[in-house]
């Protein structure tokens, strides 16, 4: 059985819980069948096992290097990414009209989890390219679509998202990169970016940077930001690679994890090259001037779900590897047996089982959360009459989908290391790398704090709390069905319902505060509590799909649900108490006393 992902669990979530077979009866997904979905998952497992997992450690130990001109990445990454693109994964989820295969987002996410788990570092290049191609396909004009999307889909061009700058990370309103319009309709871009993954390498023929910049006279703040496509090499009329654009690197960053993905500090228009004999990096406007951030956020939301998926996948593979180790490794004896008795596998010790069950509850809860969100994307496409509701719930859940797996995935990896003991702390085993890789997820694509502000400061309060109301209705429906089902489901529903109500009360209380700073001062605690309540809800909903089915797999689901409801859900109470009390200990803190 694979220790990369659990195919059994993916099949359960997709087919026994989310009823993917029903989704496939609706356009635009009706060309697919459960059999083709199974083949796609088979293919993801095979490619990730054969080509991505084998160089996961190599990419970590031999992190990318920059010799002043060229970035060097282990060649195995190029082989794997070529096969990924040739198999059609870059194009899979895009609409048929732009050369895609119209695979549902929920299915595509399930398939991608294999690559995240097998090799997060190499997988990132492909996922960035998928997201960038998707953005250009949706927002670029016909020339940009025709020039750049096909070579991105077939893996010849890779993509990046160039948002942050040395002085502006989370605060995008403060970016200073500028774009000057030219007579031919193009722009010349000047400025420095920071923390740009995949910003330079030799893995592809060209790199397509999506760059946020300001145009002359643009208003201050986020409304003055526009989005530009800036290729590393210009593309000739016939599609061949043209002149080198003025995109270079100031250097690369050396990270704790995710080392296989080169992280760069690109420089645009610094004069190293002069395309067309003029200064500046040639850029092409996507959308209209001033609309850069909303357009980029269509990609960011996709990227944020992708981050949640990545954190989930790393949590899962850490769980599976520590489980396999605990089943094989003989160590110690059960309490009450003498020193002469044979040693037992680690898994026989209750404290080890506690750490395994916690990981299972986090990893499988996170998988349910991410694939539920992806299914909302699919529902919006398959049922236009219900798209508004699906998008509202998705918008509300997105910060949780990004952040909850990112907080609890590393925690799961932490427990996996603990199970292996000293071995887990060595580089002889994969798990310490998974932990380091996963530690990026609460940081990139909007930190945990940014997600918390997005959730409490925007999503729950917008439209008079409409999205929260819609989510609450879905939770109430699950609770009602659980009460009808009786047994443990009813028991857990009785634990969940009052906490959902309490979250609503706390939200109203926060919304009513006079001091705007006080509303979001502890937004991170709010996100933590809301995340646990949402995941508990999804555990309950999964339990209803388990129903009275027999077998170890279903018993495992029952055990993980019991763990989450009895051990995890109660931890939201102190958080909600702090929020309800409007505690100001951090808000009023004089930073000079620290």
């Amino acid at each position, binding site marked *: *059985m694979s220790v990369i992902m659990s195919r059994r669990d993916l099949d359960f979530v997709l087919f026994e819980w989310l009823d993917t077979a029903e989704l496939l009866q609706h356009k635009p997904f009706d*060309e*697919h*069948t459960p*059999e*083709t979905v199974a*083949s*796609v998952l088979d*293919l993801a497992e*095979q*490619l990730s096992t054969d080509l991505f997992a084998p160089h996961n450690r190599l990419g970590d130990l031999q992190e990318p290097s920059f010799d002043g001109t060229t970035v060097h990445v282990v060649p195995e990454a190029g082989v794997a990414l070529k*096969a990924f693109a*040739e*198999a*059609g*994964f870059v*194009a*899979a989820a895009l609409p048929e009209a732009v050369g895609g*295969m119209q*695979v549902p987002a929920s299915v595509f996410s399930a398939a991608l989890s294999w690559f995240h788990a097998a090799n997060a570092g190499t997988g990132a290049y492909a996922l960035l390219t998928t997201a960038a191609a998707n953005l250009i396909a949706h927002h670029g004009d016909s020339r940009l679509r025709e020039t750049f999307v096909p070579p991105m889909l077939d893996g010849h061009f890779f993509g990046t998202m160039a948002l942050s700058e040395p002085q502006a990370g989370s605060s995008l309103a403060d970016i200073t990169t500028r774009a000057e319009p030219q007579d031919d309709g193009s722009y010349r871009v000047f400025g420095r970016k920071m923390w740009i993954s995949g910003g330079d390498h030799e893995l592809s023929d060209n790199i397509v940077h999506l760059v946020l910049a300001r145009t002359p006279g643009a208003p201050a703040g986020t409304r003055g930001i526009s989005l530009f496509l800036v290729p590393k090499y210009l593309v000739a009329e016939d599609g061949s690679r043209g002149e080198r654009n003025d995109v270079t690197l100031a250097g690369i960053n050396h990270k704790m994890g995710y080392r296989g993905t080169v992280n760069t500090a690109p420089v645009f228009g610094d004069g190293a090259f002069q395309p067309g004999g003029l200064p500046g990096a040639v850029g092409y406007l996507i959308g209209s001037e001033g609309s850069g951030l909303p357009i980029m956020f269509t990609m960011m939301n996709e990227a944020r779900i992708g981050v949640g998926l990545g954190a989930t996948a790393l949590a899962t593979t850490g769980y599976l590897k520590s489980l396999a180790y605990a089943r094989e490794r003989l160590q110690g004896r059960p309490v009450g047996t003498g020193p002469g008795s044979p040693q037992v596998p680690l898994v026989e010790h209750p404290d080890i089982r506690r750490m395994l069950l916690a990981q299972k509850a986090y990893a499988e809860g996170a998988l349910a959360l991410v694939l539920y969100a992806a299914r909302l994307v699919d529902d919006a496409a398959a049922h236009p009459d219900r798209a508004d509701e699906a998008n509202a719930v998705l918008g509300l859940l997105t910060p949780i989908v990004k952040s909850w797996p990112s907080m609890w995935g590393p925690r799961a990896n932490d427990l996996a290391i603990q199970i292996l003991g000293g071995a887990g702390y060595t580089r002889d085993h994969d798990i310490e790398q998974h932990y380091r890789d996963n530690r990026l997820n609460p940081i990139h694509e909007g930190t945990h704090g940014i997600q918390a502000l997005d959730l409490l400061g925007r999503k729950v309060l917008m439209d008079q709390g409409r999205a929260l109301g819609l989510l609450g209705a879905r939770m109430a429906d699950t609770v009602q069905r659980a009460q009808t089902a009786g047994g443990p489901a009813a028991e857990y529903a009785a634990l969940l319902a009052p906490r959902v109500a309490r979250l609503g009360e706390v939200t109203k209380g926060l919304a009513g505060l006079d001091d705007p700073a006080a509303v979001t001062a502890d937004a991170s605690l709010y996100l933590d509590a809301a995340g646990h309540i949402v995941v508990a809800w999804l555990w309950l909903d999964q339990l209803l799909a388990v129903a009275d089915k027999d077998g170890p797999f279903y018993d495992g689901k029952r055990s993980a649900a019991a763990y989450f409801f009895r051990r995890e859900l109660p931890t939201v109470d102190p958080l909600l108490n702090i929020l309800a009390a409007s505690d100001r200990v951090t808000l009023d803190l004089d930073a000079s006393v620290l």
Partner: protein
Amino acid sequence: MNIVVCVKYVPDAQADRGFDESDLTTNRESVDGLLSELDEYAVEEALKIAEAGEGEVTVVTIGPDKAADAVKKALQMGADKGVHISDEAIRGSDAFATSLLLAKAIEKIGAPDLVITGMASTDGTMGVVPAMLAERLGLPQVTFASELTVDGDGVTIRRDGDTASETIIAKLPALVSVTDQINEPRYPSFKGIMAAKKKPVETWSLADLGVDAGAVGAAGAYTKVLSVTKRPPREQGQIVTDEGDGGSKLADFLASRKFI
């Protein structure tokens, strides 16, 4: 050029495989099955030949319902059509019966120019079916090909031995078995997966092939599995401490196990 590729649906070699205690046949319920990896090389070689000229590739397999997955995988790789021979009476067939069924199926498909097989299955690993099948079909058997060239009305292979390589030429039609050195099998693609849905797959019974039930299955087998023994659990490894003589110790260990 019309090519028939014979493939087998086998239990995943990475899984913990077992046998059905009642008749000592492979227990297929407890383990996932897949297209035998050695047969992927045969499919790939057929596709390369077909793509270089004109013609089509037909994939044939024998086995229970799930064996259709082996055909499906080959179709997703690019084969044109499939045949699945399935009949409850086939359960327990040996290599002799397998070659009989394949021969009957190939005759029914129509005289192909080339029949390609893997060098052996990854479960039985006997490697005798290609020779038996060639004999039944009256075709020249050109086995263990590490390189295969089709030229006009002939086929040339290279067979690698321990000390020399042989070049063997045969006239078409012929049967060629290929090794895992001959190519790098392609992965299916999304396009291949979608295209495979529309490719024809026929399921044939013994009656369709005109084969008597007594000629196949356990009753018609010339070989019999008398007993099976579970693989012993993995033993703890031996740690060699290098005190300046690590190389010698390793060499002694390998020699004691007859690896060198």
